[in-house]
């Protein structure tokens, strides 16, 4: 699978590669081989140094809640939206599952899972202490 992802990196659209990782149960992100920074969302060039030498990596999927909100809508339960800082050094939007929306706290350690309904989506659950 790793070989496939490397071969395809230069010809596959960044969003397609991200989606392919999710379909395989993985959280894909990019690392710049020139300046070493983690890049997310996926692109065709490094937004820090401008290099196009980005390689796809698989995140270990562990991170910390950076910011959180519970979105209230009529006729449905509040839903949680968070920004998570992954241990590899990138940040992404997501949600924390298995916790009431208002009870998600900044600083909580979380673990990646793929949530599949129609489309595979990267979500997080609280890391067991």
């Amino acid at each position, binding site marked *: 699978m790793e070989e496939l992802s490397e071969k395809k990196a230069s010809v596959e659209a960044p*969003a397609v590669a*991200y*989606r392919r990782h999710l379909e395989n149960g993985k959280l894909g992100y990019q690392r710049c081989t020139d300046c070493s920074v983690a890049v*997310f*969302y996926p692109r065709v060039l490094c937004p820090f140094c401008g290099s196009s030498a980005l390689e796809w990596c698989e995140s270990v999927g562990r991170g910390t809640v*950076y*910011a*959180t*909100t*519970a*979105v*209230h*809508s009529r006729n449905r339960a*509040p*839903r949680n*939206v*968070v*920004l998570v800082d992954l241990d590899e050094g990138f*940040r*992404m*939007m*997501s*949600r924390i599952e298995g916790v009431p929306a*208002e009870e998600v706290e*900044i*600083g909580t350690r979380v673990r990646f899972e793929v949530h599949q309904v129609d*489309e595979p*989506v990267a979500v997080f659950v609280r890391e067991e202490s």
Partner: protein
Amino acid sequence: MSIRGKTAIVGVAESDLGEVGPGFTPLDLIGQATNRALADAGLEKGDVDGLFSASVYYQMPTLSVGEYLGIRPRYSDATMMGGSSFVSHLLHATVAIEAGLCEVALITYASTQLSDGGFRGVSDPPNPYETPYEPRYPVSMYALSASRHMHEYGTTREQLAEVAVAAREWAKLNPKAFVRNDLSVEDVLASRLVSSPLSILDCCLVTDGGGALLVTSAERAKDLRKPPVYLLGVGEAHWHRNISQMPDLTTTAATDSGRRAYDMARVGPEDVDVAMLYDAFTINPILFLEDLGFCEKGEGGTFVEGGRIAPGGELAVNTNGGGLSYNHPGMYGLLLLIEAVRQLRGECTERQVGDAEIALAHGNGGVLSSQVTALLGTESVL
């Protein structure tokens, strides 16, 4: 070459505001505002040769506006970066006027979103890295910033509420404000949560309305009807579009735009008599007070306590009642410029700030994305 003092705002006007009723289009309101601004300046439509607009209704806004008004500009700029766009237009118009590419610039905007059924925002394609999580655009993004500010600096919901209460106290002094009834911190805390920690009363209004603003060279401005309000300095900055790309949710690009504007104007925050800080949500003025140097990072919540930005407080902030209580027709940057000009002309009657000579007008766009700061002044500070 500095552009400090090279141009002046010579005409300002709002269109009808609030809820204008069915059938009116944004272009109708732009027409109203333009005629009123021309009368304010003592200029004719035929004098306008530079046109600046932004819109969520019209994909080619200066074309639609030019056609409707019957203006054939020789300089046209539809820079669109959200609510700050019109403060940005002020910089771009000044550069164009200084380069001799136009002489009288019209900056105009309107929305009929309330009469059309509610909030109308931009329609970017779905973002595969944010859309699946269903944040409510744009409030959830500001809520994320507020959550982080509370976490890092101990900012409280009560302090956020103080911003809404101060805006309401100013609105009570402005007959054009959309809501003018009493509001307390307790009312804000008890109102319905939209995206925690922000409640409905932490959010700006959804209204119709628009405005027009005329800019020309300092030289030409001297012969017009009203005392010129000079552009002393302006700076723009943007670091991100999507909230997940904002490097630090408690620090905005206003740190850059403000520094650029202050440097050009050769003034500092201590010189500002009136601060118009784009208040789409109650967290905004707290962030901008910090990022524009009125207080240290993290002290914005404390700064707004006890009516310090309300009428009679230490710093006059959002004297028209702001987006929170006056009007917020989707994008508000033009309306805050109009209030800054009126304060410097001494036209604000009950809410007039005494001896106002320098006003700061700060526009915000997107999700804390674009930040544009302008410093305006009377002839006495040139």
